[in-house]
């Protein structure tokens, strides 16, 4: 989908605001929001691609103005409701309750298996590379052009690289294909490549900064072989 989350090259957003010695979590609620990702993943709410797509479908104004971890809370609500785990009216009632009684306690429950899962997943991760029988159609050194179409649904084909031509600098085997997995489909692994684009190609010679390139990872269905350089 074409959305505001696809920020590469967007103008008018102002300076980068950094903060010295920023804490990892700025408020207690950020810890709970952060934990929702791994805890809800374990409960089968989503994979990482559908997690991202849920954020992409947020109200665009809210996306830009809210805290980053509020995006994660949105996903837990979104999939919680879809899975029938969260009743949104009950959520509103409880929100009001905690607003009026911020110190009211949370329900307590023990779950040693969840605690063990947390430590295990942080250590081992959840790899996205997959074996495949498919023969790679491209190789390092090939010049490729990115499909320019605007797809519906989730994709990692950012607008600023669509229609642009670059050179493959890395071939990584196959990985889960976001355009399938992020849209409720199977993992459907596809070959993954790193492609190098010049600033002139991406932004035009008039505005490109000198001596600058961008590397972007792209799945095979996004690409077609470009004519060799004249």
């Amino acid at each position, binding site marked *: 989908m074409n959305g505001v989350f696809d*920020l590469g090259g967007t103008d008018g*957003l102002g300076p980068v605001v950094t903060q010295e010695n920023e804490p990892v979590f700025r408020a207690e*609620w950020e810890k709970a929001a952060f934990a929702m990702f791994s*805890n809800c993943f374990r409960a089968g709410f989503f994979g990482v691609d559908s997690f991202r797509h849920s954020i992409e479908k947020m109200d665009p104004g809210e996306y830009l103005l809210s805290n980053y971890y509020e995006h994660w809370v949105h996903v837990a609500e979104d999939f919680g409701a879809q899975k029938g785990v969260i009743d949104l009216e009950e959520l509103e009632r409880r929100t009001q309750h905690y607003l009026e009684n911020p110190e009211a306690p949370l329900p307590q*429950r023990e779950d040693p298996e*969840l605690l063990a899962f947390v430590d295990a997943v942080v250590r081992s991760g959840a790899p996205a590379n997959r074996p495949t029988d498919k023969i790679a159609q491209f190789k390092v050194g090939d010049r490729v052009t990115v499909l320019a179409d605007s797809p519906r649904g989730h994709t990692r084909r950012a607008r600023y690289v669509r229609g642009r031509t670059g050179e493959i600098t890395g071939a990584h085997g196959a990985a889960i294909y976001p355009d399938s997995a992020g849209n409720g489909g199977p993992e459907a692994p596809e070959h993954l490549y790193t492609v190098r684009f010049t600033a002139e190609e991406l932004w035009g010679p008039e505005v490109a900064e000198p001596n600058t390139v961008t590397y972007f990872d792209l799945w095979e269905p996004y690409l077609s072989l470009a004519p060799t350089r004249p």
Partner: protein
Amino acid sequence: MTEPTDTKLRTQAEIAARVKALESMLIEKGVMTTDAIDRLAEIYENEVGPQLGAKVVARAWTDPEFKQRLIADASAACAEMDIGGLQGEEMVVVENTDTVHNAIVCTLCSCYPWPVLGLPPNWYKAPAYRARIVREPRKVLAEDFGFPIPDSVEIRIWDSSSELRYWVLPQRPAGTEDLGAFELAALVTRDSMIGVGPVATPGAAR
């Protein structure tokens, strides 16, 4: 009074109440526990952070064979030091030289190599950096980070659009020949491994 996570849309008190309400329901439904939240916070506040990436960089500076392995397969090399895991399953280290400067971004969301850098700072996740670092990296580095890169040095921006997790191997500073790996690691800043800041000066090290 303003709180750190107040926004134009909601106060921190409103956000906290909403999150607590959702949290309470997820606890009752068997999805979350407060123990799991506390454990995750503990991990990323105290155990996994840029001090781990700094150890890897310092070793690469002092052990040429390790550096070769790090460039060839960063996740495997980091695993030798018992470093790795979630959001770093396939890490790629890109090396700064006299003629090349690298920086990382995720323009589509906020992908970041957690096992070596910890959780990303808020500016990395916010719209301005994600929008601008691909379009005007020289301007952003010079004006927003006070870290100008000469035009003679190529800038390479790595947009983390897949599950590969890029991070930067900064150059070892001059005048550090006598320092050991432990002292060198203290010079390696988080920002130098993102590519938006320098390594600390030896005299100013902690």
